[in-house]
């Protein structure tokens, strides 16, 4: 028997209350982890951005186009390993406007030089390279709509009006979990040939790959300098900055969710603090007895803090124990399959688990600090006089 053991045993004294408190902490931790996972998943594109890729767009706004010839100009610069281009197509399945998925025109020949983490079986890849109306789709998107290689799909354009027919030539997967597997990529030439005149030979953004990430910053400057005196100037940035700018549109929501997660933790702390304070009040006489037989104020504090620490950590562990399988095996799969554009990889991060457990411990100590202080300051004869 030791002091820590007694503190743990004390949690059994009012088992019902302890169970309720542990449940409260566990639910708070579950909610916290769920929110953290939403945030992590949303920002995964930023977190896992390639350091050897840079993005170039119109200097004014993302929705304005760049001339296609800029790609060749960039390719001609020293230190460029590869460059490819993309156009946001913004189409949807006819009659299914509410079922959003990203559809993007690109150059199949240079696409895989840029995105080597995207994997397509070689025969499907060769087929796509030959098929002007070909498209490759992410495995999650294919699963969502039941598409197979060889299927014909019609999309209804909004930026590029009309009905557009495509052949599903391949289904891609990714070597990195953070890569969105619900995008529809098709040949830019098909778009370019069929687009109205004002939209011909125009690209949305250019992605450039450098051999060495250390060269990226220098190249960013050189690309923008290259187009400084042209009609259309560019804004070049790291892939991370580009992804961050996309997130900027939902930054308010992300901030709100972060605040909610903080509020959840504060509620957890109050629940825990209330339980500990009630326990201290009920045991004032007992603390008086302990002080009488020679225990010091620091021992009384240790009992209170030890009990709070145990409840907080135990509740945190229960919360993590529920959250891990629930999110990784249940909610996560559902989110990835149904909202993959927003949540390409919806799994509990190890760092979030560590944060959750760390906060369980820290908040338990904070919640118990005042009751522990008050208990330690009790005068022994006053404490002995108090009943229950």
């Amino acid at each position: 028997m030791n002091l820590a053991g007694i503190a743990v045993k004390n949690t059994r004294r009012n088992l019902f209350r302890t169970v309720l408190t542990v449940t409260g902490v566990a639910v708070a931790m579950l909610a916290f982890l769920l929110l953290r996972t939403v945030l992590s998943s949303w920002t995964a594109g930023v977190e896992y951005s390639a350091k050897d890729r840079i993005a170039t767009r119109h200097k004014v706004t993302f929705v304005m186009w760049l001339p296609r010839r800029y790609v060749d100009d960039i390719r001609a610069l020293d230190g460029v390993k590869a460059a490819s281009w993309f156009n946001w197509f913004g189409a949807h399945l006819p009659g299914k406007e509410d079922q959003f998925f990203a559809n993007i025109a690109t150059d199949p020949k240079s696409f895989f030089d840029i995105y080597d983490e995207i994997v397509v079986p070689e025969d499907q890849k060769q087929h796509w390279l030959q098929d002007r109306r070909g498209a490759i789709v992410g495995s999650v998107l294919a699963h969502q709509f039941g598409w197979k290689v060889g299927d014909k799909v019609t999309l209804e354009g909004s930026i590029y009006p009309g009905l557009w027919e495509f052949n599903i030539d391949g289904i891609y997967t990714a070597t990195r979990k953070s890569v969105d597997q619900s995008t529809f990529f098709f040949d830019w030439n098909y778009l370019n040939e069929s687009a109205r005149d004002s939209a011909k030979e125009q690209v949305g953004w250019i992605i450039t790959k450098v051999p060495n990430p250390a060269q990226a910053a220098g190249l960013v400057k050189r690309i923008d300098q290259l187009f400084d005196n042209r009609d259309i100037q560019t804004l070049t940035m790291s892939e991370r900055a580009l992804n961050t700018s996309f997130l900027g549109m939902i930054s308010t929501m992300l901030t709100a969710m972060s605040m909610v997660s903080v509020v959840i933790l504060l509620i957890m702390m109050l629940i825990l603090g209330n339980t500990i304070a009630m326990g201290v009040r009920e045991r004032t006489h007992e603390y008086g007895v302990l002080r009488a037989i020679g225990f010091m104020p620091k021992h009384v504090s240790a009992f209170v803090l030890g009990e709070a620490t145990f409840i907080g950590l135990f509740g945190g562990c229960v919360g993590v124990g529920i959250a891990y399988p629930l999110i990784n095996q249940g909610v996560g799969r559902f989110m990835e399959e149904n909202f993959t554009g927003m949540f390409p990889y919806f799994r509990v991060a190890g760092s979030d688990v560590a944060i959750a457990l760390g906060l369980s411990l820290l908040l338990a100590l904070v919640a118990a600090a005042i009751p522990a202080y008050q208990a330690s300051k009790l005068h022994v004869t006053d404490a002995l006089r108090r009943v229950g």
Partner: protein
Amino acid sequence: MSDASTTPTSTAANTAANTAVKSGGAAAATLIRLSQVGKTYYRGKEAVEVLKNLDLEMPDGAFEALMGPSGSGKSTLLNLIAGLDNVTSGSIQISGVDLSRMSEGERAKWRSQNVGFIFQTYNLMPVLTAAENVELPLLLTSLPSAERKKRALTALRVVGLEERASHRPDQLSGGQQQRVAIARAIVTDPKIIVADEPTGDLDRASADQILELLVKLNKELGKTIVMVTHDPAAAERASIVRRLDKGQLT
């Protein structure tokens, strides 16, 4: 039973009383000496003088009962002797150590080594077994775990409850719980045992067993016992009975 009530504040009378123990043996050395002890509490701005210039000597190995009406100051006196509280004026010396000069921390350490406590309501920790409750004061020592357990079992054997070592308080009768509390009080082998109404919550038969045990601790183990009680039958077991009223010995 020799009732050794004394003249208020008279050291000589107290000394005489101390020598008039029931055993009638030779005078024992003074263990506890109170000199002009006063204790005042404050209720807001109002001062309440609980003890007034009290002089008292208790011999080593005595079994003393403190009696008196509620509010007479007997529990306050017990708390001062046990080092739970400090005097407002005067001094308390126990084995030559002046408690009134000690800090709260020093008194706590002194208590853990010199005083065993027995309370009216036993005050055992409900989540601990009898053996663990008895072992509790030993956690403040540097004894290894095995030695602590051994001593706790020895103390339980003294009070006749060794076979109940693994029982929790709610599995014991009131009398048994008080015996566990007595085992907890003696496990550190203190010189003094203070008992505040130790039979107040017990039926007559259990109370008699507890009192027998206290007499045994006094006679066989030489413990000095100071007991506050309202029960004349309990006081009868003591070798000296002192009565307090309005903060003074009568």
